[in-house]
């Protein structure tokens, strides 16, 4: 089945208007020996058959809604998404529209992004937000790109905490391989017990940017105000990559003095969807706006005197500045930004604070219970939000196999990324986890110890 609406009669009339006889006549420029390859693909399905086939594939997974109870996070989080979010996202007016280059007929998208920018600024305590990046990892990489441009290449060191998400650090390494930047601090063998002060000695006069995560990859929460002060004294900028749910409760990065605040927006109403599409949010201070990549929506008036919104400062971007643009970004995560705006609007300050507190209390309950099991202990003393690292008496993979047999998706195996954290599990608890589920986790972990 295809979505081509032409009747044979219409097709023939159109060919005649063009002045050719056959569709094949339109493809004479294609090198003849390669024209019309035989594609080895399965024959076409009807919609009914396709729906069945995709249903079959989907049922080949165990999902965290109906099959598994999840204590897995590590950068992607299972939260409740209010029903209204997807109802609005499914409006064809939103999801089948293009980038709002024609503002007269795109005010829905434009005002939606303007409100998204406002909500993200409110959440982070920052002054300006762009219309989004691909995800948290690429937003971090783009922050380095931005800082490099801000110093016009004269500072080339980026200091990154080893407690930034391992996949974000990996993405950063990929992004900077072409540029003349040096990465410091990207060492999984560093002392992971240390707080922000461990980075101080790495910040020098050549440092463009210092990058930290809040809460960090192990779930810990630190106040970075002092580190930021030190970085500023050495002329460097500071980027914090943050969990937006945590900001329902915790001190804002804006308050701590961060210059760039980015993060993964998936917890804000976006389904896990096996890793994407997600949402990279990106904010900064007004003085750096011209070095921030990505689209921006600004308020203006139309020629009828109505308040309206347009894409603004577009000359920064690749379609005008080409090789002199700071980034090549074009498509962003528009619809996911709308999802985040919907989520934040529906929850409001009361709802988001409630979710953040639920995550906090449930995680602390889980941590306390797990730490009571013989052989298990919490690895770090620092305050944490909704994730915590557990030192286990057996390999995490074994424990997770055992949990899986009981329908529980266990935590992240930190030994994969940090040699010193062999047999350490990163456990995540959100508002989705009931006390009974936490108790079951604890019970099965305790059992596993006896096996």
């Amino acid at each position, binding site marked *: 089945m295809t979505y081509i609406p032409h009747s044979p009669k219409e097709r023939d009339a159109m060919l005649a208007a063009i002045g050719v006889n056959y569709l094949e006549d339109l493809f004479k420029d294609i090198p003849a020996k390669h024209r019309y390859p035989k594609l080895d693909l399965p024959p076409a399905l009807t919609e009914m058959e396709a729906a069945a086939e995709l249903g079959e594939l989907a049922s080949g997974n165990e999902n965290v809604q109906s099959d598994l109870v999840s204590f897995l996070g590590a950068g992607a989080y299972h939260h409740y998404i209010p029903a209204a979010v997807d109802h609005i996202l499914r409006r064809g007016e939103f999801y089948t529209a293009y980038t709002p280059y024609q503002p007269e007929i795109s005010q829905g998208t434009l005002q939606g992004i303007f409100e998204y920018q406002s909500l993200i600024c409110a959440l982070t305590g920052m002054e300006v937000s762009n219309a989004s990046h691909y995800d948290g990892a690429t937003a971090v990489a783009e922050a380095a790109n931005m800082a490099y441009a801000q110093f*016009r290449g004269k500072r080339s060191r980026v200091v990154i905490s080893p407690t930034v998400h391992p996949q974000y650090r990996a993405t950063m390494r990929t992004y900077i391989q072409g540029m003349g930047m040096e990465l410091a601090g990207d060492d999984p063998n560093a002392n992971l017990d240390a707080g922000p002060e461990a980075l101080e000695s790495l910040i020098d006069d050549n440092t463009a940017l210092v990058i930290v995560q809040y809460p960090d990859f192990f779930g810990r929460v630190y106040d970075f105000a002092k580190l930021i002060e030190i970085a500023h004294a050495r002329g460097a900028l500071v980027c914090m990559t943050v969990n937006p749910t945590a900001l329902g409760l915790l001190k804002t990065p804006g308050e701590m003095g961060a210059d760039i605040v980015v993060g993964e927006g998936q917890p804000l109403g976006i389904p896990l969807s096996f890793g994407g599409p997600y949402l990279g949010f990106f904010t900064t201070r007004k003085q750096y706006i*011209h070095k921030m990549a990505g689209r921006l929506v600004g308020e203006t008036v139309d020629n009828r005197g109505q308040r309206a919104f347009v894409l603004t*400062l*577009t*000359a*920064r971007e690749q379609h*005008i*500045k080409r090789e*002199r643009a700071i980034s090549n970004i074009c498509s962003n995560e528009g619809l996911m930004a709308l999802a985040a705006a919907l989520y934040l609007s529906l929850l409001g300050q009361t709802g988001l604070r409630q979710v953040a507190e639920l995550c906090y209390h449930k995680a602390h309950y889980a941590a306390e219970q797990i730490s009571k099991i013989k052989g298990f202990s919490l690895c770090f003393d620092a305050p944490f939000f909704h994730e915590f690292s557990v030192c286990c008496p057996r390999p995490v993979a074994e424990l997770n196999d055992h949990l899986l047999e009981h329908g529980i998706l266990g935590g992240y195996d930190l030994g994969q990324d940090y040699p010193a954290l062999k047999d350490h599990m990163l456990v995540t608890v959100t508002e989705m986890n009931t006390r009974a589920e936490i108790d079951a986790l604890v019970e099965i972990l305790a059992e596993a110890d006896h096996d």
Partner: protein
Amino acid sequence: MNIPTNLKYTKTDEWFDPATGAMGLSDYAQGQLSDIVFVEIVVSTGETVAPGKPIASVESVKAAAETYASVGGKVVAVNEDLSGNPEILNTDPYVKGWMVKVEGAQASGLMDAAAYTKYCEERVH
């Protein structure tokens, strides 16, 4: 089009004032760019610039351009007012809109006002 006769011009639409060592963007260039919303001077006082080296990056509502040094020399002053008031480049490109001043410059290979006027007219048609 305003093309003062006391200045010298480049093919990339910068002007140079041999009397003061100032340089900037021509009236023709600002007209082509239209409403300028951002200017960043990319050289600092004390730096030596070579002719043709970028001295500023300019963005308008619809376009972006680099401004190149019209002559070489040592930068002795940078116009700090431009970053906060980029529209000066539209309203007063030759006086308040100067970008940097250099000393020890040799104004060789530049067009005089008559030649530059002709050069601009050719491009308009």
